[in-house]
């Protein structure tokens, strides 16, 4: 029956069948487990319907970690395939699918949720707020992201994965050259997740502008909040471009329009341009919050105020503006004239200036500080030289004439991993280790943590530095194999070993979490790192309402001042607190979105129409719904506070 032909993977292999069985069994085990322990009710009440920014943050974190492993397995498969010449582990089609999904998963379903986890968990606490501006919208953002992620991941076992690269350039991504539904998944899954991200952007801009604690002027905001603010502004300006782009791509694939075809007036370069108008700012959406996290950690463990606060802010603003005017550096060699190449070459290099300002500020903060080498600090210190190397090779790539040599070689792959791993991944792991005690009430093991950081850096250098060499020697990216005579074999073997070391470091991180859950001390107080900003001023675990009394801010380091200079942070008395009610609607609506997406991928029109009506029905229901939230009474708050205080000390 053609029913099965439709949903079957067009290009199956043993690996895919094995994963199908594996995924099936895991799902079954999860469902049975939850049923056996009677946790459905708990899951529904406490997590699926939650509107608490802290819990939503934790769900983002879990998704990100899950995707880190999915993307990591892809990476190992690629490196294994290339480790020796003429390898036959993957064939060309599978290699295409693996590098395409690796890129998408890592950027959109790993790094993005990871930073949104920080937005969610940290920002309200850091600005002394009780919640985000639109708690329900926040839940909707998460579930849309989650459903987009789910849809993208099932492509692996239902219908086939995208195979046109994470940039999905046309005409390669058009029906003619990508006939399977893989690229439909790309268009629609990212669209759904992207809607969620756009709402996150709106939500956090409003939160940061309107919900800061009294006294916290813009220029007294902690650096992470600043970086997140700018990243969210970039989200709001960049993601609509993606929305339009994906919509046009979907129409080309499903409805036979001619936006990006090579006949009937279509223009394939329009895709490349619009993709990077979104894609390049996207990189800064990831890296700026990472910079923010490093700033927090460096000033905490150097026991000093951040050097050059104002220039830090100014440099981020400049970076955010420049990030929108450099997109064409991604296609210097695709036929634009020397004039535009030169302009984009110069704007690209200009970004090095504000970035350099930031590097110097971190160095000056460290210079006179009393440095404490905790795990988060170790990541932050290793980040500086490694990231700088990535930046320097970036400037090399930005020289448009020279780029004809490096373009689409492993040199490029080495460059962007050299910025994205020490920049974004280190920041995430550093931040995770740093905030772990606030979130879960115990510290991760420091010794294991440092081992992880060192192994990761060693693995990183082994895995990526060789790619600079083979890239300059002409090894093209996205090639599934090469011949013996190229001489790339040895370097690629080194690179595979490096990837293996990185894999070990991730395994160690998992072991660390396991070890700490079992053995770490639960008696760590509210402020285990002796930190400086407001998120450490409340209890661990953080009560639902964050702060019993809204803090009063007087400097960029209000909490530090309250500890060292006797400044009174919590002035005023406890009053009843207004909180939003939980709601199942965001989850239900996102589930319908999932069905809608699936129906679109396979062009099942009746189902698509029914689910679209369902989505509109949810919106209509929401419009008529009246929900004024609830109050937490003074007695309840005092009871909670007493318990939390009693648990410690």
């Amino acid at each position, binding site marked *: 029956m053609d029913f099965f032909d439709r949903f079957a993977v067009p290009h199956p292999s043993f690996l895919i069948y094995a994963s199908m069985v594996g995924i099936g069994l895991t799902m079954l085990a999860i469902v049975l487990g939850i049923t056996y322990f009677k946790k459905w009710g708990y899951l529904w009440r406490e997590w699926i319907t939650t509107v608490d920014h802290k819990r939503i943050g934790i769900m983002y974190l879990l998704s990100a970690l899950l995707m880190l492993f999915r993307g990591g397995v892809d990476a190992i498969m690629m490196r294994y395939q290339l480790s020796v010449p003429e390898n036959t582990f993957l064939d060309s089609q599978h290699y295409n699918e693996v590098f395409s999904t690796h890129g998408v998963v890592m950027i959109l379903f790993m790094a993005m949720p990871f930073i949104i986890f920080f937005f969610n968990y940290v920002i309200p606490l850091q600005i002394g707020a009780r919640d985000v501006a639109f708690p329900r919208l926040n839940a909707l953002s998460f579930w849309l992201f989650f459903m987009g992620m789910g849809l993208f991941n099932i492509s692996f076992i239902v219908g086939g994965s995208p195979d046109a690269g994470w940039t999905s350039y046309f005409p390669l991504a058009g029906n003619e050259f990508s006939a399977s539904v893989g690229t439909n998944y790309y268009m629609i899954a990212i669209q759904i997740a992207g809607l969620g991200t756009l709402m996150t952007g*709106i939500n956090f801009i*409003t939160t940061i502008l*309107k919900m800061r604690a009294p006294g916290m002027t813009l220029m007294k905001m902690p650096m992470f909040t600043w970086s997140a603010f700018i990243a969210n502004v970039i989200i*709001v300006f960049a993601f609509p*471009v993606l929305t339009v782009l994906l919509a046009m791509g979907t129409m080309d694939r499903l409805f*036979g*329009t001619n936006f990006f075809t090579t006949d009937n007036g279509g223009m394939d370069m329009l895709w490349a341009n619009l993709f990077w*108008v979104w894609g390049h700012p996207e990189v800064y959406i990831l890296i700026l919050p990472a910079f923010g996290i490093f700033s927090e950690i460096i000033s905490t463990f150097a026991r000093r105020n951040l050097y050059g606060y104002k220039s830090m802010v100014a440099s981020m603003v400049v970076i955010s503006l420049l990030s929108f005017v450099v997109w064409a550096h991604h296609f210097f060699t695709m036929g634009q004239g020397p004039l535009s190449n030169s302009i984009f070459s110069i704007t690209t290099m200009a970004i090095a200036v504000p970035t350099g300002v930031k590097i110097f500020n971190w160095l000056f903060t460290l210079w006179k500080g009393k440095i404490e080498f905790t795990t988060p600090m170790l990541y932050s210190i290793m980040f500086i030289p490694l990231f700088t190397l990535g930046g320097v090779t970036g400037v090399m790539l930005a020289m448009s004439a020279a780029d004809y040599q490096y373009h689409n070689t492993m040199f490029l792959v080495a460059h962007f991993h050299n910025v994205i791993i020490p920049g974004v991944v280190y920041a995430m792991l550093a931040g995770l280790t740093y905030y772990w005690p606030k979130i879960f009430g115990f510290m991760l093991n420091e010794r294991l943590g440092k081992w992880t950081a060192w192994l990761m850096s060693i693995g990183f250098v082994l895995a990526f530095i060789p790619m600079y060499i083979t890239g300059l020697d002409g090894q093209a990216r996205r090639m599934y194999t090469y011949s013996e005579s190229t001489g790339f074999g040895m370097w690629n073997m080194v690179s595979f070993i490096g990837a293996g070391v990185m894999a070990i470091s991730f395994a160690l991180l998992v072991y660390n979490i396991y070890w700490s859950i079992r053995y770490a001390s639960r008696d760590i107080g509210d402020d285990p790192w002796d930190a400086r900003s407001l998120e450490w001023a409340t209890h661990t675990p953080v009560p639902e309402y964050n702060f019993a009394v809204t803090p009063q801010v007087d400097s960029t380091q209000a909490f530090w001042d309250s500890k060292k200079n006797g400044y009174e942070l919590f002035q005023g008395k406890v009053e009843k607190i207004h909180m939003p009610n939980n709601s199942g609607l965001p989850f239900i609506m996102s589930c319908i979105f999932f069905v809608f997406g699936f129906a679109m991928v396979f062009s099942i029109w009746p189902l698509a129409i029914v689910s679209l009506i369902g989505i509109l029905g949810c919106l*209509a229901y929401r*419009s008529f719904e009246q929900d004024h939230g609830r109050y937490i009474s003074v007695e309840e708050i005092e009871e909670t506070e007493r318990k939390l205080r009693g648990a410690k000390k």
Partner: protein
Amino acid sequence: MKVDKSLPLEYSTEENSLKILGFWIFIGAEIMLFATLFASYFTLENRVGSGPSGAEIFEITPVLIETLLLLTSSFTIGLAIHAMRLNRTKATMTFFAITLLLGAAFLGVEIYEFMHYVHVGAGLQTSAFTAILLTTLGTHGLHVTFGLFWGLFILLQIKKRGLTPETANKSFIFSLYWHFLDVIWIFIFSFIYLKGMM
């Protein structure tokens, strides 16, 4: 919920003023959305392939009628908000209803226009130009359609619950949305139709 009596109803609670700011930011995103569509339109404008060009298919009459209907509806939604500020529920509802009727009429003409395009052989699949033309107009049209339902729901809520901080807030936000669609239309009118016919 704390209601601050010194402020206009739509701003009178903290939640309300958050929502208005949030909506302004959303409009920022919408501007980017339409800007992308316009940029694509200008890129593909002359890439007509074997299909017709704009000058060959645009007709001034329906476009003028559409413009007139939408501009008037933008005026009446302004009157509705004005009536709301004066706390006149009946008048608010009447102007709201007129706005929605004008919007529906606009949509009717637009549907006629689309059928005309398809009839003269300028369908979605004809060329890059027709695809981006219909997509840009269609996106605006879908926004209007969405607005009609949204506005209708708000109208029903005012009828049921009167002018509360909540309904006032929704009406105000709806009026921002509606004015915004009007502004977009003016761009469509000038840079797609007038420019295309010249």
